[in-house]
C-alpha cells in the first residue's frame, strides 16, 4: 500500500445469495465484480452509473454494512485502509472488530427522512455517535455538537427540533453533522442531494466542499447526476453491472470519455442552455440488464452502439489512455 493512499480497494467481489436453489448450494449473484481503486488522503471520488450498477454495494462494503444486513453475503478481495501508517483489511471484518474503525468511516444516506431517528431531537442525533465512540463528558459533547452545528450551517434552535420539523436541506445538514461528529477520515455520501430542490442542492454541495477542506476528509460520493460529480469530485469511476468500466481524473474522463457507456451517459444529460439546433445524442436502447442475466464477454455489449463479435467472446482488459485514465473496451 502506498503511503499517501488512505484507501485501497483491490479486486473486490461481492456476491449475494439469490433466492434460487442450485444443486446442494444456492446460486449467487455477483453484484460487484473485481472492483479496484485507490484513494489518496484528502481526495474525492465520485461513483456514477445507473441504478443496479453496484455503486451502493461498493460503498456499503467499505463502511462494512453488508454483513450486517445479510450475513450470507460473500466478500472477496481487499479493502485496505491506512490508519496512522498501519494497514488494515476491512473486508470480512467482524462486527466487534469493526467497532474500533467505524468512527473513521462514516456514511450519509440518500433519504435523510428515513435515516434520522424520528424520536430523537436533532441535537441528540448529532450527539449519539459521541456517546459510543468517544469518552467525552456531557459538557464536552454539548460543545462538540454546537461546533458541528455551526460548521454545517444549522441555526441553534434546530437543536431542539425533531426531524419531521426540519426541511429536507436542514435534515441533510443534520446527517452531515452526525457523520462528522466522530472525526472520520473517510466520508461516504450515497446520493446526498438527489432528494433536494435545486436551490438547496447547491448549498449542500458547497457544504461538502467546505467540510472536505476543513476536516481534511477523503470523500466518496455516489451520484447519478454527472454534473454533481463534476462540481465536487476530483476523480470519477463509472460503473456498469458491477464493474468499473472507466476511471480517472474527473476533468480528463468527462472531456475525453473513452468508453461508449460513458459517452452515452454524458450525452444523455439534458443541458440547461438554449440551443437553436438540437444536439445529436447517443441514446442507449433498453434498460440495464439484470445481474442474473449478465451478457457474456463485455457486460455492456447488449446496449453498446459499437458492439462487435469480439465483445461477446471475451472481456476487454483495462487500458490506460493518459496517466491515471483507465477504461475497459476493445475500441
Amino acid at each position, binding site marked *: 500500500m502506498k503511503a499517501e493512499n488512505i484507501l485501497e480497494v483491490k479486486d473486490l467481489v461481492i456476491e449475494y445469495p439469490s433466492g434460487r436453489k442450485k444443486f446442494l448450494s444456492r446460486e449467487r449473484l455477483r453484484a460487484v465484480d473485481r472492483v479496484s481503486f485507490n484513494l489518496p488522503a484528502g481526495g474525492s471520488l465520485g461513483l456514477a452509473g445507473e441504478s443496479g450498477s453496484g455503486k451502493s454495494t461498493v460503498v456499503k462494503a467499505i463502511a462494512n454494512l453488508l454483513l450486517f444486513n445479510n450475513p450470507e453475503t460473500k466478500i472477496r478481495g481487499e479493502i485496505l485502509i491506512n490508519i496512522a501508517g498501519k494497514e488494515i483489511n476491512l473486508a470480512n471484518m467482524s462486527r466487534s472488530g469493526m467497532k474500533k474503525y467505524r468512527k473513521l468511516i462514516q456514511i450519509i444516506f440518500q433519504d435523510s427522512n428515513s435515516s434520522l431517528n424520528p424520536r430523537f431531537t436533532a441535537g441528540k442525533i448529532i450527539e449519539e455517535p459521541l456517546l459510543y465512540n468517544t469518552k467525552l463528558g456531557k459538557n464536552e459533547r454539548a460543545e462538540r455538537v454546537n461546533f458541528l452545528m455551526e460548521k454545517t450551517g444549522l441555526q441553534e434552535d434546530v437543536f431542539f427540533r425533531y426531524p419531521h420539523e426540519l426541511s429536507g436541506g436542514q435534515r441533510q445538514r443534520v446527517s452531515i453533522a452526525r457523520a462528522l461528529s466522530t472525526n472520520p477520515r473517510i466520508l461516504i455520501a450515497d446520493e446526498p442531494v438527489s432528494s433536494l430542490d435545486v436551490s438547496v442542492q447547491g448549498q449542500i454541495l458547497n457544504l461538502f466542499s467546505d467540510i472536505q477542506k476543513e476536516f481534511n476528509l477523503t470523500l466518496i460520493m455516489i451520484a447519478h447526476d454527472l454534473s454533481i460529480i463534476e462540481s465536487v469530485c476530483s476523480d470519477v469511476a463509472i460503473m456498469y453491472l458491477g464493474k468499473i468500466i472507466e476511471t480517472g481524473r474527473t476533468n480528463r474522463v468527462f472531456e475525453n470519455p473513452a468508453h461508449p457507456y460513458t459517452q452515452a451517459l454524458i450525452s444523455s444529460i439534458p443541458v440547461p442552455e*438554449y440551443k437553436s439546433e438540437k444536439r445529436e445524442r447517443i441514446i442507449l436502447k433498453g434498460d440495464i440488464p439484470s445481474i442474473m442475466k449478465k451478457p457474456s464477454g463485455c457486460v455492456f455489449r447488449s446496449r453498446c452502439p459499437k458492439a462487435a463479435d469480439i465483445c461477446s467472446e471475451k472481456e476487454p482488459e483495462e487500458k490506460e489512455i493518459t496517466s491515471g485514465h483507465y477504461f475497459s473496451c476493445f475500441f
Partner: protein
Amino acid sequence: MKNKILEIKNLSTVFYAKHSGQGKETKELIPGKAVSGVSFDVYEDEVLGIVGESGSGKSVTAYSILNLIPNPPGKIVSGEIIYRGIDLLKLSSEEIRKYRGAEISMIFQEPGTSLNPVMRIEEQMCEVFMSHGKTDRAEALKKSIELLKRAGLPDAEKRIKEYPSSLSGGMQQRVMIAMALAFRPSLLIADEPTTALDVTVQAQILDLMSDIKRENGKSSIIMITHNLGIIAEMCDRVLVMYGGKIQESANVKDLFENPLHPYTSAMIKSIPCFGKKHEGRLNTIPGMVPDIFNLPPGCKFCNRCEFKKDICEKKEPELKEISKEHFVRCHLYEG
C-alpha cells in the same frame, strides 16, 4: 397566430389544513394558497414547460386542469379553465370524464405508483379503451399491443400479460405513455415524467415524447419539471412558478439567454451545469421555499432575493410584459 387550445384564467387552488407548517398547530382549518391567480394559455402544437421547486404550485396547477384536486382538503376557489370553449371547472364529475384521458391526458411522476399493482398491464390498458369507446375486449387488446409497440416496449405481446412490478421503471413509464396516448389526446400533461428514471432511460423517454408529438401532429404538451435541462431541450415556452404564482414567462431562448426575474437567474446559476468549469463554489439561493400557509404579503421571493427593496415586502408586483411575450413579476422592472 396559433390557436389557443387551453386558456387558464385566474386559477386559485387552496388546501385546508390545521397546522401552519412549523411551530404550533392552529385550531381551525386554515387555507394554504398552493396556487393563486394563475393565468396562461396553451397553444396548438407547442410544448409548454412549467418549472419550479417543490411547493411552487406547478403540480397543483396541472391537477387543477383536470379537476383532480382531492376535495377536501383541496379546493379550486376561483378561476376558469377553458378547453376549446368549454369551462372544465363547470362540468359535473360525469361530464369531465369524457375529457380526461380522451382529450386531455396526464402522465404522472412515479409510474410505479400510478399503475395498479394487482392488475395485469393487459387489463389496465383494455380498461382505458373499453371505458371510453365502444370497443370489445379483443379489439381493445389488439389496440393496446399496437400502442405499447409504438411506445417502444420490447416484446409487447409478452409484456402485456405481466404485472407492473415485473417491469422496470422505464418500461412502466412507457406503459403509462401508451395509456395516455390511447385516444390521441390534443393535450398531454406530463408531471415530472422522468424524475424517477436513470439518465439514459430519461433520454429515451424524452425522445419518445418528441417522436409521438411529431407523429400526432397538432398535439400540445405541458411539461412540468424542476430540471432546467429538460426545459431547454424539450420546451418552446416556459412558465417559472414560485410561491404559487407565475414569476416569469417567456420563450425558451429568452429565458435562458436573458432571464429577467432574480429567481430565474439565480436558479440557472445555482445548478451545476455539465461541461462548464466552476471556479470553486456553486452559486446558491439562501433560505428555502416559503410555506404556503405563511406566504409573505409582498413578493413571494423577496426573502431570498439579492435585489430586495423596501417595496418588495409590502406590495406584490404585477406580471408585466417587458418585451414581446416575455412577462415578469418583479419590482425591478416596474415604473
